[in-house]
């Protein structure tokens, strides 16, 4: 193992098809037109000294270190800003250039601390390297002149420091913030000698708009911007490329290590999902992996009111297995089930559903996609024929019109949001459909052409109205529809959306958005060039979630925006492996590869491979499991890496269901909220402690690589194997690669996938099979997976969750940049400095009517329950709408949400809850009681050593 040193070519790669030939230092070189002289030299193995240049940002030409001579041209141009030309003859090293460079370095070093031996960047400092490269041996100016050595160090950010005394003002950080991240939080303030990097209005990094993505730290050539972990631990000695375990973007990272200790996580430039960029979570928020709350020993208890008792793995697994078998003996084969995790690997997910189907002997398997993107699977399969997004992330580079509907990419999918913002800065147009004024509506150098701030629950009315305009104004793509779609279905749909009840004028009544704005947005989408829809849980988590997905698919097909780069219907998946969890057959009705359990051919294939008979009937979905538990027919549950007590709606009902079970087995890193109702706790492993794969939102399968042994002794896949074995069925795999081999053998879209292929390609997008051996970046080129595209009638049906005098406001919930899902990971990192509690966003008018001031405690009441939290007054939300997050168990936002759900999939309607808000003195009685119960439930019995016999 060694430290992976990525080549920095100094300037960006040119994508030109035209080749230019030139000579550098006597070597003939051919590169794409538009390549810089610096990059051309580097590609030929000639390193031109540089400081302000790096290939993540545009060339700047300020440091004057990369000077070269070009035959026939005057002076010594900067090689970073000079593009190659046919026949050019370049010299990168001669006496004149050496002297110039040494002079430049002398000036830099005359105002730089000479503390290399104790500097955190020692061994990883480009300034140090360049001093060596130019042969700097003395600084003739001395060090006594005016300098910046006493400049203050900004340590306000929890993850990195800014030491101005070491800054060479190369602007790499400023340009990374602008060009890579798109936040524009940094600038060079002052002039001449007073020039300095300023965060925001010079208020320090923590107080500024900085989003801590780490792009500036990565870009810094000195120790000016430096990870605190490196300052504390030292430089890493080896690195391993792996995939982030946070959101569905699936960024590739180098885990840089010293021994078994992570020194830092650095985004990998070759990562095809992130191209070397990161966000605050993946880059910095990995401290949870060794947090003191990690449970490292298996535990059991007889009753949920007892304290936990630490036991051996054998005892815990044996107890869990015997309890599950006892329950089946007493209540029947179908009285138990399990939940797979979207945070675990494909291989682990596959094994859990396999164990449930083949060992439990039923199909009571489900996954957290139930509560997020299950409508995506249903809606896209009915219209396009497959349950996945249509594009790769790179596709956005060719998009002319972006619709973002029910998603907040800058908070929930920040690395992709940066790509999107870059495209918007290049001139793409933007339509945002969201009840809140999310950051994309207006932020630095980005402004939506249209923001349609619709009332929660009216997505279908809005999409039908957009379609109405497309059809009635003849803006649809007749050729595409005729050639690629079911023409009769199109005719029915066109007649349906043309009806007056689907007009923008009618929709305005439901959505609250003026008809003219809807019409203008529809015209832009249909006529603005390549148009792509990106959506999130603001689409799916509704009683009409599946209908909304179909309505978007209809719209994309009608306008011909499917089947090529720059277009498509793109779900932004919430968790790291939601796509994979769905692909792997986690749903109770589907085997891996989205094939229904009742399909005899598919079922027999798995029966033969697994050597068992499978039940042909669908099993229970998560909400059905909880209903059945309350009803007394479902008694045992194995939960791998999910926290349904916090994440699922109507928390009181979830708790009632869990409390009614006789054996709940939780496999997790921490004693989460679900574990409060568990009888067996099996300590899980983090993504750093195991091998496997994750599949991101663009269907990209990426490797997860083990960088340290599992802290509790077993990887999650090994725990599942042990449980299956204890229940009497041996599933033999020596390594997760063997599990993937089995998946490939049994799943048509995965037949070409193997760990060898992933080593070779880095990552691959399914379908990857004989037809597409290198994977499939764009789906439905030339034809839909189902053959012809299918238009479906999407009638708007208002939700039954109505506002009224008792509950006059609509609550919608979401996520914030610094926290992730139930917060189990991010709450155990320094990210809490940005979000230490869930807040209720409320419009100033609604707040004033209720006598609520900013920061006040308020009570949030719904038909399901009540909770208290503090208010944040903001016009980000429209009057009549309030918003909160669900990251903190002390808030228990899901006590308030109801059990209304999507008609097709039972995905909960998190996004629409009728509520009332009133001033409050603090937490509710429920919150206080819950906290007390939780504290009691987390007790671990102290083992009293037995004195040795005399």
């Amino acid at each position: 193992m060694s430290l992976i040193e990525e080549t920095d070519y100094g300037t960006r790669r040119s994508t030109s098809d035209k080749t230019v030939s030139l000579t550098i230092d006597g070597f003939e070189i051919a590169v794409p037109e538009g390549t810089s002289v610096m990059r051309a030299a580097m590609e030929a193995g000639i390193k031109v000294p540089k400081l302000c240049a790096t290939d993540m940002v545009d060339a700047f030409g300020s440091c004057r270190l990369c000077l070269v001579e070009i035959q026939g041209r005057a002076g010594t141009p900067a090689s970073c800003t000079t593009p190659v030309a046919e026949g050019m003859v370049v010299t990168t090293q001669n006496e004149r250039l050496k002297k110039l460079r040494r002079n430049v370095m002398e000036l830099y070093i005359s105002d730089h601390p000479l503390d290399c031996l104790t500097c955190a960047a020692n061994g990883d400092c480009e300034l140090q390297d360049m001093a060596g490269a130019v042969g700097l041996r003395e600084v003739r100016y001395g060090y006594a002149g005016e300098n910046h050595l006493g400049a203050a160090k900004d340590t306000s950010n929890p993850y990195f420091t800014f030491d101005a005394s070491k800054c060479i003002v190369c602007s790499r950080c400023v340009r990374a913030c602008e060009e890579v991240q798109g936040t524009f939080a940094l600038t060079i303030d002052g002039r001449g000698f007073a020039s300095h990097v300023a965060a925001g209005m010079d208020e320090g990094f923590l107080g500024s708009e900085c989003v801590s993505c780490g792009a500036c730290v990565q870009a810094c050539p000195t120790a000016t911007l430096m990870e605190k972990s490196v300052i504390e631990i030292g430089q890493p000695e080896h690195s391993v490329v792996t995939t982030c375990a946070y959101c569905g973007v699936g960024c590739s990272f180098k885990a840089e290590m010293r021994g078994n200790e992570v020194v830092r996580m650095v985004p990998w430039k070759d990562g095809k999902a992130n191209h070397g960029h990161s966000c605050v979570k993946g880059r910095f928020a990995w401290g949870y992996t060794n947090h003191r709350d990690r449970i490292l020993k298996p535990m059991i208890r007889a009753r949920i009111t007892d304290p936990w008792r630490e036991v051996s793995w054998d005892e815990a697994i044996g107890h869990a297995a015997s309890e599950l078998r006892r329950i089946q003996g007493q209540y029947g084969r179908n009285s138990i089930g399990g939940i797979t995790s979207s945070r675990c690997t494909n291989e682990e997910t596959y094994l859990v559903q396999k164990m449930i189907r083949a060992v439990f002997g039923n199909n009571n398997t489900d996954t957290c996609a139930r509560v997020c993107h299950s409508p995506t699977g249903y809606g896209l399969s009915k219209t396009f024929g497959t349950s996945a997004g249509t594009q790769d992330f790179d596709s956005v580079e060719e998009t002319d019109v972006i619709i973002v509907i029910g998603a907040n990419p800058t908070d929930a999918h920040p690395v992709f949001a940066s790509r999107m913002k870059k495209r918007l800065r290049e001139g793409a147009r933007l339509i945002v459909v969201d009840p809140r004024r999310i950051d994309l509506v207006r932020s630095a150098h980005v402004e939506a052409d249209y923001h349609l701030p619709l009332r929660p629950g009216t997505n279908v009315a809005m999409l039908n109205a957009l379609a109405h305009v497309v059809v009635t104004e003849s803006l649809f793509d007749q050729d595409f529809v005729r050639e690629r779609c079911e023409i009769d279905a199109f005719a029915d749909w066109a007649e349906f959306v043309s009806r007056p009840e689907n007009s923008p004028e009618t929709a305005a009544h439901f959505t609250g958005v003026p008809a003219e704005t809807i019409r203008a947005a529809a015209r832009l989408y249909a006529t603005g060039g390549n148009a792509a829809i990106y959506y999130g849980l603001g689409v799916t988590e509704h009683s009409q979630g599946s209908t909304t997905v179909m309505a978007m698919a209809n719209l994309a097909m009608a306008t011909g925006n499917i089947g090529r780069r720059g277009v498509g219907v793109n779900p932004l998946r919430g968790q790291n492996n939601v796509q994979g969890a769905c692909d792997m057959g986690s749903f109770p009705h589907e085997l891996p590869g989205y094939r229904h359990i009742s399909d005899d051919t598919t079922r027999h294939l798995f029966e033969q491979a697994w050597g068992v008979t499978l039940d042909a009937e669908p099993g229970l979905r998560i909400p059905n499991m909880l209903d059945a538990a309350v009803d007394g027919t479902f008694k045992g549950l194995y939960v791998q890496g999910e926290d349904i007590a916090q994440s699922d709606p109507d928390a009181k009902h979830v708790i009632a269901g869990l409390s009614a079970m006789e054996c709940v087995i939780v496999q997790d890193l921490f004693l989460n909220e679900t574990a409060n109702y568990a009888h067996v706790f099996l300590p899980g492993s983090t993504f750093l402690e195991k091998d496997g794969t994750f599949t991101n939102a663009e269907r990209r399968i990426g490797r997860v690589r083990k960088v340290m042994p599992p802290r509790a002794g077993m990887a999650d896949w090994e725990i599942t194997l042990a449980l299956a074995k204890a229940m009497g069925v041996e599933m033999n795999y020596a390594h997760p690669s063997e599990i993937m081999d089995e998946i490939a053998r049994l799943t048509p879209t995965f037949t070409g996938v193997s760990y060898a292929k992933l080593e070779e390609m880095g990552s691959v997008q399914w379908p990857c099979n004989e037809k597409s051996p290198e994977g499939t970046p764009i789906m439905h080129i030339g034809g839909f997976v189902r053959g012809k595209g299918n238009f479906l009638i999407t009638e708007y049906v208002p939700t039954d969750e109505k506002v009224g005098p008792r509950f006059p406001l609509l609550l919608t919930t979401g996520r914030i940049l610094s926290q992730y899902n139930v917060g189990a990971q991010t709450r155990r990192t320094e990210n809490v400095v940005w979000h230490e509690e869930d807040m209720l966003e409320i419009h100033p008018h609604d707040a004033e009517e209720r006598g609520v001031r900013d920061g006040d405690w308020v009570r949030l009441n719904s038909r399901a329950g009540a909770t208290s939290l503090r208010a944040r007054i903001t016009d980000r939300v429209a009057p009549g709408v309030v918003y909160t997050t669900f990251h903190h168990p002390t808030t228990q936002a899901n006590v308030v949400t109801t059990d209304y759900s999507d008609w097709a999939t039972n995905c909960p309607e998190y996004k629409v809850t009728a509520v009332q808000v009133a001033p409050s003195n603090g937490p509710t009685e429920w919150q206080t009681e819950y906290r007390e119960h939780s504290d009691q439930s987390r007790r671990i019995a102290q083992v009293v050593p037995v004195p040795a016999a005399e």
Partner: protein
Amino acid sequence: MDSGKLVYMANQIGRFFQNQPEAEAVANTADHIKKFWDPRMRKAIFAHVDHENGEGLQPYVLKAIQALKSEAATPKV
């Protein structure tokens, strides 16, 4: 299982298909329930049809449930 909840869910499903000709709407509603509902949920709604005359179910949804019930009662060859 709470029959009220199941009736609500079944009607929700039926509502999506209600724009189709009745025979198609009945068949699609039945197909959806068959493909996505666990057998105990189906059994509970069959019992609701038997004991409560399917009270609360939309007429075409009731037909769908009755069709499913007949199918379940038919021995497989």
